[in-house]
């Protein structure tokens, strides 16, 4: 008897459960979704910000710039962090949903091209990079390394870094260029996954924000062309615009920010906020 009642109650709960799905967010909760590159940065901001403003809560998630922007368009998050600019198409989609995205540049990021420390190659030009990642150069000996096949590692297509790298390195900033990543490129789901594979694999080449580089990987020196000087990715080389692969980091809000969201963005752009940018291995803007 008791069991049967339980059974009934359980089924009822299951049915009612669906009705209860719509949750009301905690007051003062800000949800920030987006770039995997920036997730550590936004998290550090959020932690610091929550210390000063105790009644607000910021939930930070990664997933890729595209994920954040898609979340902003579909109204499921308050702040999208992105390591690429919003596309025209995305802005139109947002406007259809009555959302007018506002853009803030909150930092700069150098993209490091990394190889295993055992790899003899330690510098490349942008042209060589383009040829490697589009699959025209397939052996390390063609760029001064050992006679071994090159294994290309890339981020998934939802990554802002992937798109930035395609547009600015593979296509060398040419709008009409149709260059694509070689079909043989391995698409890994996170910067960390690329970093791990680089540590194990002496034939691999990959790219990610320079914050992820540690002594187990070797960041290559890059030159704009054959005649230029090769520069390593460092904060000073990026501020002075010597290192050729760097990009702005963006934060998008659904409208002109107000209240807590405004406080948060002001904090990110404040002196302390920009110090955090530097601490997380990005380059401050002011």
């Amino acid at each position, binding site marked *: 008897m008791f069991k*049967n009642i339980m*059974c*009934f109650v359980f*089924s009822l709960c299951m049915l009612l459960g669906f009705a209860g799905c719509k949750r009301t967010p905690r007051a003062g909760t800000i949800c920030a979704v987006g770039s995997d590159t920036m997730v550590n940065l936004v998290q550090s901001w959020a932690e610091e910000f929550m210390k000063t403003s105790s009644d607000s809560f910021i939930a930070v998630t990664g*997933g*890729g710039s*595209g*994920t954040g922007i*898609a979340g902003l*368009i*579909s109204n499921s998050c308050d702040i999208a962090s992105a390591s690429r600019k919003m596309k025209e*198409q*995305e802005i139109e*989609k947002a406007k259809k949903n009555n959302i007018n995205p506002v853009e803030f540049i909150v930092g700069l990021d150098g993209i490091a091209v990394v190889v295993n420390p055992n790899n003899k190659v330690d510098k490349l030009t942008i042209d060589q990079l383009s040829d490697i990642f589009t699959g025209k150069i397939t052996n390390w000996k063609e760029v001064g390394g050992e006679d*071994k*096949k*090159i*294994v290309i590692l890339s981020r*998934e*297509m*939802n990554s802002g870094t992937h*798109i930035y790298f395609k547009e600015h390195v593979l296509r060398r900033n040419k709008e009409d260029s*149709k260059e*694509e990543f070689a*079909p*043989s*490129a*391995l*698409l*890994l*789901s996170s910067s960390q*996954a690329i970093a*791990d*594979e680089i540590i*194990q*694999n002496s*034939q*691999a080449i990959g790219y990610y924000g320079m914050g992820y580089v540690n002594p187990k990987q070797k960041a290559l020196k890059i030159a704009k062309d054959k005649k230029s000087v090769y520069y390593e990715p460092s904060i000073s080389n990026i501020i002075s615009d010597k290192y050729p692969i760097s990009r702005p980091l963006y934060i998008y809000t659904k409208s002109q920010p107000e209240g807590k969201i405004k406080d948060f963005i002001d904090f990110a752009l404040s002196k302390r906020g920009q110090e955090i940018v530097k601490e997380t291995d990005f380059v401050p803007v002011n």
Partner: protein
Amino acid sequence: MKNMSLKSRKIKEYFIEKIILISGIISIVFVILIFIFLLKEGLSLFKTISLKDFLFGKLWYPISEPPKFGILSLFLGSIWVTLGAIVISFPLGIASAIYISEVAHLKIREFLKTGIELLAAIPSVVLGFIGMTTLVPLVRKMFNLPTGLTALSGSIMLAFMAIPTIVSIAEDAFYSIPKRYKEAALALGATKWQTIWRVLIPAGFPGIVAACMLGIGRVIGETMAVMMLTGNTAKIPKSFFDPARTMTATIAAEMGETVRNSEHYFSLFAIGIVLFIITFIVNLIADIYIHKELK
């Protein structure tokens, strides 16, 4: 008093019966709704892309200008990875089912059964993670490959996931073979091995096929582990030692990026339809064989 309890019992029976009925209907309704949604979103792709370009196009560049939505390489990626998993998991799974149900002593049997059920309980992301740190470097060194993120690594890990399914269903099939078959064979002087090979396997064959089919169903729908292990290269793999990209991994990796109602979004649903059709066929075959067994 007695009447009352009888009456209340009847009412109770009535309600319970209806609740069970509703639960049954709800699950069917959900399947139908999911299928309709999948069709509605997936078929929208074919307003702009021809079915031929979708199924037989070799290039998958969904966010380029102009985009290319050819899933041949993804489809073949799934097939390669699944084939590899089949080659590994079928013999292993069926052999261990035979051992557990026919050869092993009671204590060993219980121990093995629990162990295999435990294997089924490991989340696939954990298996993927373990595979990434142990299997991938091993495969690379063992076969001297440029990278260990290959179809083979995915296949091996998926085989681990399919084995529990195959073992438990095949084992049930062996149990349901009437005892007298085995007894008759042994009485005629057949050895244990002859009994297994000539009598039990033919008798349990439908069950074995069903087990294998459900194993395939498990493998082809698996996402997380393959995404972590196969390298996700959208290029037609020529061997098990090439990286591959499966349909499931494509959906999982790209769904976050897509803008709703864009071509890319529809194309992911269209891949969903292809997957749905494949698993439907596989399950149908399994079902047919399960019913054969009952006859």
